[in-house]
């Protein structure tokens, strides 16, 4: 796991975060449910909660699909290439490429030759950035930078869990199990926060 330089995280007095979708995207409930499931992956292991609200302008986390240059200096590039990006805490900006062919449910592995991308896989990854994780070299981890079309990866690896729990601690109800195992990959950037094993 890795953190952004300076190890930014959401402040300790903001454990209950809100999120909202860009109104102009007019997303269906099915699409919104994908993000809800993605947030649950993280809230299961840390003591943060995520609640959808209607007000995009006041939400802590603002989710939007954009095409090409959308004003943040990081333009999207059409089908495939870069799929999404998100900013470190406490920015809350979470952008996805509106040109992609997003699949929102079911097994996607039978379609590896297409340009289809599993939305939940990307959502879980980007939420990791929103919470303060950088990219990891552990291939099984959610925070690995690449994902092939026709691939679904939505379960946090032990590498992801260890990293995010250094930032926020453990959810008291988390039983410590994870679906995949991986090796702890890294130290932090000049971070005085102790590593607890």
């Amino acid at each position, binding site marked *: 796991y890795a953190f952004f330089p300076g190890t930014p995280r959401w402040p300790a007095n903001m454990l209950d975060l809100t999120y909202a979708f860009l109104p102009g995207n007019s997303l269906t409930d099915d699409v919104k449910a994908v993000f809800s499931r993605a947030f649950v992956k993280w809230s299961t292991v840390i003591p943060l909660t995520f609640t959808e609200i209607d007000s995009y302008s006041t939400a802590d986390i603002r989710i939007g699909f954009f095409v090409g240059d959308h004003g943040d200096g990081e333009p*999207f590039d059409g089908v495939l290439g870069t799929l999404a990006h998100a900013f470190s805490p406490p920015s809350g900006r979470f952008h996805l490429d509106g040109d992609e062919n997003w699949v929102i449910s079911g097994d996607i592995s039978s379609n590896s030759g297409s340009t289809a991308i599993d939305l939940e896989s990307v959502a879980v990854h980007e939420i990791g950035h929103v919470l303060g994780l950088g990219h990891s070299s552990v291939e099984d981890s959610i925070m690995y930078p690449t994902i092939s079309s026709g691939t679904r990866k939505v379960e946090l690896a032990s590498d992801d869990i260890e990293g995010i729990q250094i930032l926020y601690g453990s959810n008291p109800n988390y039983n410590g199990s994870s679906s995949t195992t991986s090796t702890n990959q890294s130290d932090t950037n000049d971070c005085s926060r102790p590593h607890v094993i």
Partner: protein
Amino acid sequence: TFFLNISSIPPWFVIPDVTKSAWDIFQNLSGCHAGDKIDGISKLKNYFNEFGYIPTSPANFTDDFDDALESAIKTYQKNFNLNETGQLDNDTLQQIIKPRCGNADIVNGSTTMNSGKTSSYNTTIAHFHTVGH
């Protein structure tokens, strides 16, 4: 475009090469190494600049396979658990053209992916033993 599930995708979406990623042009650079000058290398430098592997961004990158590009490739190979050859071998190119997150791997010259770790740290881990209790 949103598809409820895989079976709702029209057949023409599964035909290869209907829509190609802009990064597929890097396939033409297979086997390139230091000292080469080939069309398209400047775009590859832009790619590595975008993700933090080449820190400086001149107005226009050249098509020269220079030391900066070789260093960037080695760092990239280390981060993605590939053989550190500094050359554009097939495994490296196949990794480069995969769809990915737009966030940089190296931010302000700093990373804690593989390339940001010291050898002493890895050595310590490699020889650290635990016993179940």
